[in-house]
């Protein structure tokens, strides 16, 4: 039940927040805050109790929830939670809380509707991380999309309509390809076994002719690599990130991109292991191109948010590289990257937001010497610039190093080029840091350093990123079994199905 509550709380919270605006706009803020805090606490409880739950559930999946939805088509409302989804949920609610906090002062119109959209995006993301029914998965995939489109289109910066349309068209077009592939999978499996179902576990290990497998995989891949994004399908991202309100950028960079990575790990590799292996070298190549291309472009951007957006393109290249390296080290690195990049890039967007609130521009050329008046913000920016260039001791290093060590086993040449990305990351991170905070003071207005609310947002992020850098093992342990499942997709598909089915049958679709 708890899985269902995650989603219901967000959906209902969103509607309440919208309605509450009639009486008092600030109630909407508190409602969405409350909804997210409840969810965060629930997820934290699950994280703390995961070992006990794991013993109860007798498989690598912690919790299930299943009720039939449209039984005649084999569609059910099927949620399941494992270590990977749990970690992603924590990240979702954590960044969600930050997104609410960051819009506390920034947003001044249609506040209720804003929070409605915010919570619904998060609900969609939560659904995506939990769903084990492909039809439902597509449903949540779309639920993420539309509110996000509105967030950018209504509350964004000057060029918001263009950015919102672009985001919508890219995501929607690729999403439709995935839908076609889902239907294809549905019919292939149905024809093969006579059982027409969208159940993820039943579809696992469906055998295809290589040709069919390849096409179906490409359908899924399309949706995920646009979302991730992989160069050359990234061009919606800089616009969307730059034009979105801060909360939108945080969610886009911190979470929406991660649904792409999650999709690769959860669907592409396990469902189509052979086809995935087939394209692995090309996928890794695209990853490396993304790393270098993103870094190159990040360097010359003059719009602070675009700069951060291109660093995301660069960092997500590591995800592509790691997933298709097919070994535990690399995939663990990818999962770490999903979390740490969510935090570090989220923080950079939040800092960009802070600066925008103070000087009302995103143009780096009009910034400089901010350290003098805002040393606290400077320190925070320093930490996250270091995180983004992969300084050991911060979480991103663990992620990138694991990915690269793992990728080395798969391809030496590509790993060498990816490692060069670390130099490029140094170049753009230092440029960001120095041109904003160092040098002579550019503005002569007084710039207040971070307020209590702002400190409350960034300090936990710092703690998280340092903690993940020094003590990453708890997270690595939590996702270990999910990662092993991805790795063994190729070899042990059948074993997993045997391992899973009894567990599900016994639970009868109810959790705990």
């Amino acid at each position, binding site marked *: 039940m708890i899985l269902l509550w995650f989603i219901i709380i967000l959906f209902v919270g969103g509607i309440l927040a919208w309605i509450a605006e009639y009486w008092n706009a600030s109630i909407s803020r508190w409602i969405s805050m409350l909804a997210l805090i409840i969810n965060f606490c629930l997820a934290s409880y699950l994280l703390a109790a995961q070992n006990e739950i794991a013993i109860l559930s007798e498989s690598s999946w912690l919790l299930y929830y299943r009720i039939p939805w449209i039984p005649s088509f084999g569609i059910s409302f099927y949620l399941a939670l494992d270590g990977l989804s749990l970690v992603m949920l924590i990240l979702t609610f954590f960044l969600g809380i930050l997104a609410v906090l960051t819009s506390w002062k920034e947003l001044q119109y249609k506040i209720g509707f804003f929070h409605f959209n915010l919570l619904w995006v998060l609900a969609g993301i939560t659904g995506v991380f939990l769903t084990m029914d492909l039809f439902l998965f597509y449903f949540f995939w779309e639920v993420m999309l539309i509110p996000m489109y509105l967030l950018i289109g209504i509350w964004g910066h000057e060029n918001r309509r263009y950015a919102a349309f672009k985001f919508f068209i890219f995501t929607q077009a690729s999403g439709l390809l995935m839908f076609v592939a889902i239907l294809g999978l549905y019919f292939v499996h149905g024809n093969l076994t006579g059982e027409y179902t969208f159940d993820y576990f039943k579809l696992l290990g469906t055998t295809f002719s290589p040709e069919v497998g390849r096409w179906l995989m490409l359908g899924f891949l399309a949706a995920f690599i646009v979302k991730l994004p992989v160069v050359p399908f990234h*061009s919606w991202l800089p616009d969307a990130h730059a034009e979105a309100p801060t909360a939108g950028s945080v969610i886009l960079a911190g979470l929406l991109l991660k649904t792409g990575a999650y999709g690769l790990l959860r669907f592409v590799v396990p469902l189509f292991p052979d086809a995935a292996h087939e394209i692995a070298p090309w996928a890794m190549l695209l990853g490396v191109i993304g790393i270098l291309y993103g870094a*190159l*472009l990040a360097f010359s951007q003059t719009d602070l948010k675009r700069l951060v957006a291109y660093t995301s393109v660069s960092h997500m290249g590591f995800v592509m590289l790691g997933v298709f390296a097919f070994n535990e080290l690399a995939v663990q690195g990818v999962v770490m990257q999903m979390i740490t990049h969510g935090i570090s890039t989220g923080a950079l967007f939040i800092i960009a937001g802070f600066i925008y609130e103070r000087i009302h521009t995103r143009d780096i050329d009009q910034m400089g010497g901010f350290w003098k008046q805002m040393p606290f913000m400077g320190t925070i920016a320093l930490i996250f610039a270091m995180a983004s260039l992969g300084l*050991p001791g911060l979480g991103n290093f663990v992620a990138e190093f694991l990915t690269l060590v793992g990728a080395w086993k798969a391809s030496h040449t590509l790993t060498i080029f990816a490692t060069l990305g670390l130099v490029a990351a140094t170049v753009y991170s230092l440029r960001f840091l*120095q041109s904003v905070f160092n040098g002579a003071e550019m503005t002569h207005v007084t710039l207040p350093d971070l307020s209590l609310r702002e400190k409350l947002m960034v300090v936990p992020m710092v703690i998280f990123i340092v903690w993940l850098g020094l003590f990453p093992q708890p997270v690595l342990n939590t996702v270990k079994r999910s990662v092993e499942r991805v790795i063994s997709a190729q070899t042990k598909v059948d074993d997993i199905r045997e391992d899973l089915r009894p567990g599900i049958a016994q639970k009868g679709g109810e959790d705990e």
Partner: protein
Amino acid sequence: MMDLLWLVPALPFLGALVLILFGTRISRTMVAVIGVGSVGLAALITILVGTTFISSSESSFNLLLWSWIDVAGFSPSFALHLDPLSLIFIFVITFVGFLIHVYSTAFMAGDEGFSRFFAYLNLFVCSMLFLVLADNLLLLYLGWEGVGLCSFLLIGFWYEDKNNGDAARKAFIVTRVGDTAMAIGLFMLFDAFGTLAIPEILAQAPQVWTVGSQTAVIIALLLLGGAVGKSAQLPLQTWLPDAMAGPSPVSALIHAATMVTAGVYLIARMHVMFELAPLAQQCVAIIGAVTLLLAGFSALTQYDLKRVLAYSTISQIGYMFLALGVGAWSAAVFHFMIHAFFKALLFLGAGAVILLLHHEHDMFKMGGLRKKLPAVYWTFLIGAASLAAIPFITAGFYSKDNILWLTFASEKGNVWFFLAALFGAFITSAYTFRMVFVTFFGEAKSTVTHRAGNLMTVPLVVLAILSLVGGFIELPHTIGHLELLSDLLSPVLPSVILRPGIASAEWAIQSISIILSLSGVYLAYYFYLKKPALPGKIKSSFAGIHHIWFTGWGFDVLYQTIFIRPFVWLSTMYKGDPVDKCYTGIVLLTDFMHRVFAKTQGGILRWYIMGLVIGAIFILTLGLLL
């Protein structure tokens, strides 16, 4: 007692943490107490731990703090490894570090970033200690990058000046290039051994690889890449002269005594790898020999007091690399230690001069400071004598003589290395005493209002004493023959193998080197005190060579042309994202089609009729034809 080892890096870390969190809210005295005290305590504990360690019979001591990562056999942990090699390094780091911290309280007294300075400095000491105490290469890498960060922060400490920022960025990026090579080396080492623990790698390597095995050579070269970056050796030496933009105590601590010798530490630590890769080891020697000469020539032409010292540092580390390259491991460590003393002393002395002359860096605008700043003069002179390897009384003589002798006598040495080192020694004493004579002798060209206080003088005196007596722990066969340091290091670093039947030549080599270093001093005396007009004439007649030496052999221009400009050009050209242009193209095409087809629906009846007619004719024609 040994369990206290964790406190050695932890104390400076705590100091940094407290200063970052509360530095702006507490008084300056408190900041100084925390900043200096944490490193001072670490130095005390180092001595305690060190004496316990030496008196015990253990050859190494391991302390597991916590398990860092444990994934699929990749399991580096936060674990400290103390052995004689790391002991010497932590001793130098904490002890010299402490003296420099004390000095900094006076040097930085008026600076508004007082607490920030000590926070960075403490963080540096912590990272450096992790670097040398690390039990595995990933933790070493953490320290390695940590010192890089602190170096960046401290070079750019006075951040309002853009030039400082540029120098800081250059240092970070150039060293990061080396670090990246090293990272790839780590991937390969993990691939080969399934672990990054240093003791295990060193134990297994000789079993896995034969001498000269290709993988071993590649890995050793990659590690060397990291080492040349950090230690400012050819071809990644360009950042160090610019790094002098930082406050002088920073130059003393980071860019002379400790961080820049990290490369020496890495190679000494991984010496087994280099012994398995003779090609790589030879590269170490060649890089050392060439660097010590190139940097020496550049040092001869500088005006900025600190830049002379910077090139001198590059050159002296070149000596250490040369020693490593010929297998004289403990000679390199010996020179590292002595160099840390006298070079820190010289930088602190230079810092005092610069500060008392109101931030004047050009030594040709100084002159005659001998009388006005006696304490600084005498200590600086001792440091300079040690650097120039003035025989018998200075520590620098013993450590450099050791290297000179071994480049000649070692099995892996040869006469070319020896000649390079010998000639380097001559240049060294020439540029050193040029600096001394120009700065402290001659006529006074500036006014000095006050002298250095005790907080600055005491560290200078302590370092000066060490620069004199520090050498007596290791005496050559010809004079006394004492091998305290090599004996201490013998469990970690193998002793050098000499060419057969060569031992008798030692006194001859020593005599040559003594003559050369003294003649270097005379050269400087002749040019800068006796005939002060001469250097100007020579300079104008060899303007081209002077320019090349002065600009550090044009490496900056070279890198500017082949790396920086193309990168910036490419990045600026791609700023608008060419990939996005394709999508814009699709949009334009769609839009164009939309306009074309929209025209067909103009609402004008005669066009519709025309369309119908043409269509009908077309279909009819088709029907008739087919």
